[in-house]
């Protein structure tokens, strides 16, 4: 490391906020995508805005890349360090600054955990809606960077729909106020542009989120089907009937059995597929909708329809779904998790095609996904110790993401491009579109120092599909539910 750069960092930060020893850097070598590892030059852990500004100015001066990091739970390698760069950890920006119940908003620092916001406002009957599966650990700053989703996106939207304002530092250390506590703000919608920009445009140092009133009642209906195509078609029937579920999830037989063995959720293990449909809102309305929903499901060919008898059973139904990834990890040495989104109308067709591909490649696939918004997480099961299985799993995954793009969908619904899907992004965007993204990046960060090389592939990069490689059935952060 350039001694002048190191000395400048030392002047910018208290001694305990700068890590440079190899053993201290090691925990930062990867995020939730542990297949990619790289030790950074240094890790900066500022505690104040001034310290963060000083770090950025030093990096700008010495032309050193900066990778922002929240809780490090991301699944696409967005917080993967660069060998010649520093990690700017926002972990110590962990305070809730303001809760305004009247205006239904909370102003928080980026290192605050997603779930901590809802916990802090629960006594007011309020909550923060986006609920990525890692919500007990992931930070709100990381949620902004990834535009995180969850199981309630169809009704309540993604992170971008639940923000009011951001404070952002530019690479020059300049503080920008983006958005207002009002419902809109003058000028371009830079709030939308910042959300999901994967740390390439600026460093988020404060987030104002919208809070919602907790629904009077939430209820879950579980429906069993004897084919995945029928279950997929039932999803369209529910939406067509004018029902807008808070959550609508689907699991196929392999995932049902794995989850049942793991969590004992009470799932019908003989079903080929199940749908979990959550309805929420006013008590009387939920009651009416459950009746309508049951009728639609039976009419759509459900072999069994169960309404959770009480809150405990509702949570149990969800526990099986939330534990599905680790559950599948118990039945296969390795698996790839895909994250494509497709227009819902193609659900039955895409599922049918995935089944055919599964036979063709001779590899099992467990389908676990957000059926309501078409966000698929097919898990391709394989054994890396068997010759050729890894290669076949990769080819299978490539075909699935291609299929998603072919039917008008996208290669990433919620995990982000990061480093993992750079090749897949090449196949989704034209050179002109990628050039436009690079021009926008340059408008914010002309020297290209903020998380360079992530999220938007260079024009030179060839197209191949992306995947999340999970070895030994172990996801990074195995204690976190993944869905």
């Amino acid at each position, binding site marked *: 490391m350039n001694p002048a750069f190191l000395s400048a960092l030392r002047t910018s930060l208290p001694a305990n906020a700068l890590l440079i020893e190899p053993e201290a850097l090691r925990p930062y070598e990867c995020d939730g995508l542990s297949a990619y590892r790289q030790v950074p030059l240094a890790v900066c852990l500022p505690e104040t805005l001034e310290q963060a500004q000083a770090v950025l100015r030093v990096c700008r001066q010495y032309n050193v890349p900066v990778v922002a990091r929240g809780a490090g739970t991301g699944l696409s390698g967005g917080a993967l360090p660069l060998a010649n760069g520093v990690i700017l950890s926002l972990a110590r920006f962990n305070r809730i600054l303001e809760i*305004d119940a*009247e*205006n239904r908003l909370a102003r928080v620092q980026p290192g605050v955990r997603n779930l901590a916001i809802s916990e802090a406002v629960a006594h007011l009957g309020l909550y923060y809606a986006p609920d990525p599966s890692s919500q007990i650990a992931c930070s709100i700053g990381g949620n902004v960077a990834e*535009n995180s*989703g969850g199981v309630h*996106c169809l009704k309540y*939207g*993604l992170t*971008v*729909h639940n923000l009011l304002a951001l404070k952002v530092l530019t690479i020059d250390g*300049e503080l*920008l106020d*983006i958005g*207002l*506590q*009002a*419902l*809109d*703000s*003058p*000028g*371009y*919608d830079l709030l*939308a*542009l910042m959300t*999901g*920009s994967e740390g390439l*445009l600026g460093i988020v140092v404060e987030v104002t989120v919208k809070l919602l009133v907790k629904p009077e009642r939430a209820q879950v209906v579980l429906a069993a089907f004897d084919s995945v195509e029928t279950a997929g078609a039932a999803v369209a029937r529910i*939406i*067509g009937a*004018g*029902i*807008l579920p808070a959550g609508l999830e689907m699991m196929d037989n392999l995932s049902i059995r794995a989850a049942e063995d793991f969590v004992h959720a009470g799932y019908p293990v003989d079903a080929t597929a199940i749908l979990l449909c959550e309805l929420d809102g*006013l008590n*009387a*309305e939920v009651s009416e909708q459950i009746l309508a929903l049951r009728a639609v499901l039976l009419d759509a060919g459900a072999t069994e329809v169960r309404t959770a008898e009480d809150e405990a059973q509702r949570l149990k139904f969800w526990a099986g779904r939330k534990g599905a990834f680790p559950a599948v990890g118990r039945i296969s040495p390795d698996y790839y998790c895909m994250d494509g*989104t*497709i*227009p819902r*109308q193609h659900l039955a067709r895409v599922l049918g095609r995935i089944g055919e591909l599964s036979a063709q490649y001779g590899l099992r696939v467990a389908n676990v996904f957000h059926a309501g918004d*078409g*966000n698929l997480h097919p898990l391709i099961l394989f054994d890396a110790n068997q010759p050729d299985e890894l290669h076949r799993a990769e080819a299978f995954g490539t075909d699935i993401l291609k299929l998603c793009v072919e039917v*008008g*969908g*996208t290669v*990433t*619904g919620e*995990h*982000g491009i990061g480093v993992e*899907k750079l090749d897949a*992004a090449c196949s*989704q965007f*034209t050179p*002109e579109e990628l050039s*436009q*993204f690079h*021009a926008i990046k340059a*408008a*914010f960060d002309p020297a290209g120092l903020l998380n360079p090389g992530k999220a*938007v592939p260079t024009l030179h990069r060839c197209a191949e599909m992306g995947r999340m490689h999970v070895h030994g059935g172990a996801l990074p952060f195995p204690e976190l539910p993944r869905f």
Partner: protein
Amino acid sequence: MSLETELIDRVKQAASRRAPLCIVGGGSKAFYGRACTSDRLEVSGHRGIVAYEPTELVISARAGTPLAEIEAALAANNQMLPFEPPHFSEHATFGGMVAAGLSGPRRPWGGSVRDAVLGVKLLNGRGDVLRLGGQVMKNVAGYDVSRLMVGALGTLGVLLEVSVKVLPRPACERTLVFDPGVDKPLSGMPVSASLQVDGRRYLRLSASSRCIEMAADQLGGEPADAAIWTAAREQTLPFFRTALPLWRISLPAAAPALNLPGSELIEWAGAQRWLAGELPAQAIRQRVAVLGGHATLFRGHAGAAAVFHPLPPAMLALHQRVKQALDPHGIFNPGRLYPEL
């Protein structure tokens, strides 16, 4: 030659000659924003619904499609644009709706235009056609350039096609009117619109019929004509028949009263307030900024005025660089949003 090819050619020519263009759809919101005086680029001929599958909750249409046509197609399937956009004329287009970014009475409960936009097909200032975003709810590939178009008043590119999320219509709706002084708590009520004008307070409830009965019993009030919401949205209420400058003031919903001279109409549970008054712009903007909001000179200006709330220098500089990234030759709607863009 297709109209799209023609538009691409016009833009490429304009870019090479550095000759600015004013993008014109149906002209329904020509009054909104600062004046644009360059050559016109007519896009209203580029029309037609491209894809609409009701169970998908998404509609995709060419930007010149009449807004009325979109809404009729949705209504035929018992669906709606959740943000209830104003038309301001029968000629309003789908693309103009996005460029203006204006939402109607349902906005605080149903979301805004920008919330609903999922993807665009965009012609940038280099004459490149870009497909950004998509037709799906969840999509985090690439920067969210689609939503950046909302409210940009055409200063960043020519919209060719737009995809937006739609919602099922509520099973039932009821409008109630309350006398002055009646202020019951609305928490837990299925409210979907609010309006305060001339000392009267209107609410719209949207839910199942049984829920509406229960809520109406609790709230009291008198039934009123639902036409009030169209009249508020289209600004045909008597309040809007004024020769005075009309300000749109966006505030945190619970912000205290403006206490500015003039008459007021309050929507969005307090988050959108219309002020008809002659106070100097600076006085209004100072007061509004203190309350955490911003003020737009909506109607009654001479085209050259500072229509939109001024941006701090660092934000303005960033806006200029973003504009440059999409429209490097500065050909689209110069000055329509801010003189510097």
